[in-house]
């Protein structure tokens, strides 16, 4: 009897638990939306003010305001106990990023996607080899351990925090090394986000060339999208595409690292290697490509295409608000100078290498 009644008592409890979890993300998502929307309003108001007063004000994109408002709120209230009510919802911002990337596919004609994708993949392969070599050289010079070096090389060559997390289990790295690598990659990402558009403008880079450079050189996808959007809408589109091509390589790079450490330890990697690569492959890439294909065969009306592209923009807006709310310069400073120093020196070299690759490709084949 009790065996029969048990599910009937636990089911409502499970449902309540699920509802409570769903409800717990609402305040943070509302905050992401409010911060992002305030950024959008600030951009519009500044434009309207300049127009009304016949004043030439700089065109400051909504993404800058959204990140700035997020930074101010995060620094002012992030440490307060009551702010914890927003944490679960703010943590969804990387999910919005992925949804935004999938829907962004609708803005690419497939032929363009294929051309840019092939060029990107070729540059990504060169970038991965170059970035990993540079990071290994600097890490050796600073006397870092092998696993920490591998984590930094993977984080800087492929895709930032998610690559480090994926590699941690595969190479059996400890939590301290992982924390060090993540702190380093985050510190560089926050600074690169502001610096890259400045360098791009100084060099008069085209939207495409800047997008390819940001997609190749900045480590975290959220910061790539934000740096691209700070430059221009088209640059953001290209930057996300190149970064997506880079993210797609994560399985191969992590497998390579896992095999290297396993061989050195006299072991092998158990299980199928193709299954390993598949498990690390970012599946949302299929959605991105599928939407580009559908848009190219005119499966959507122009109004539908506009709506899908606009939902993508709203999803990115939540992401940018999350980047601002979750970047804390005080904490980065307390994290220590060494993660920053090792990463920063290597990342400057990687940025210079990728900039050279992009400028040469632009001149030779035209991006």
């Amino acid at each position: 009897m009790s065996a029969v009644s048990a599910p009937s008592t636990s089911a409502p409890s499970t449902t309540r638990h699920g509802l409570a979890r769903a409800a717990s993300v609402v305040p943070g998502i509302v905050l992401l939306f409010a911060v992002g929307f305030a950024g959008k309003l600030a951009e519009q108001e500044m434009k309207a003010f300049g127009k009304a007063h016949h004043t030439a004000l700089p065109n400051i994109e909504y993404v800058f305001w959204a990140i700035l408002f997020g930074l101010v709120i995060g620094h002012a209230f992030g440490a307060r106990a009551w702010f914890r009510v927003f944490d679960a919802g703010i943590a969804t911002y990387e999910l919005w990023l992925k949804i935004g990337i999938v829907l962004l596919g609708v803005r690419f004609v497939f032929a363009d996607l294929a051309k840019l994708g092939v060029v990107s993949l070729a540059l990504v392969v060169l970038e991965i080899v170059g970035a990993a070599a540079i990071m290994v050289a600097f890490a050796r010079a600073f006397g870092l351990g092998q696993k920490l070096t591998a984590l930094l090389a993977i984080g800087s060559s492929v895709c930032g925090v998610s690559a480090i997390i994926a590699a941690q289990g595969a190479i059996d790295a400890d939590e301290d090394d992982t924390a060090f690598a993540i702190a380093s990659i985050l510190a560089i990402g926050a600074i690169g986000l502001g610096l890259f558009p400045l360098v791009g403008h100084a060099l008069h880079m085209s939207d495409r060339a800047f997008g390819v450079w940001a997609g190749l050189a900045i480590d975290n996808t959220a910061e790539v999208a934000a740096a691209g959007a700070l430059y221009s809408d088209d640059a953001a589109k290209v930057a996300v595409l190149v970064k997506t091509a880079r993210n797609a390589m994560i399985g191969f790079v992590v497998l390579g690292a896992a095999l290297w450490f396993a061989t050195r330890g006299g072991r092998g990697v158990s299980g199928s290697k193709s299954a390993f690569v598949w498990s690390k492959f970012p599946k949302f890439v299929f959605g991105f490509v599928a939407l580009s294909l559908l848009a190219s065969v005119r499966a959507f009306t122009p109004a539908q295409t506009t709506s899908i592209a606009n939902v993508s923009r709203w999803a990115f807006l939540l992401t940018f608000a999350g980047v601002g709310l979750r970047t804390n310069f005080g904490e980065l400073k307390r994290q220590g100078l060494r993660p920053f120093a090792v990463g920063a020196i290597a990342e400057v070299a990687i940025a210079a290498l990728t900039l050279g690759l992009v400028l040469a490709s632009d001149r030779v084949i035209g991006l």
Partner: protein
Amino acid sequence: MTSPPLEESARERVRATRLALSLDTVALLVAAVVVVAIVVGALPPVPW
């Protein structure tokens, strides 16, 4: 070389990344639902 512990904001970024990695397919599904809703007219035109 001793590594520093992760500060709170970095820890929360890791949490957000782990969540997104675990919800890779969910992102795909949500995007698919949005597209279908727009195509069948269940969602009104989305402005920007």
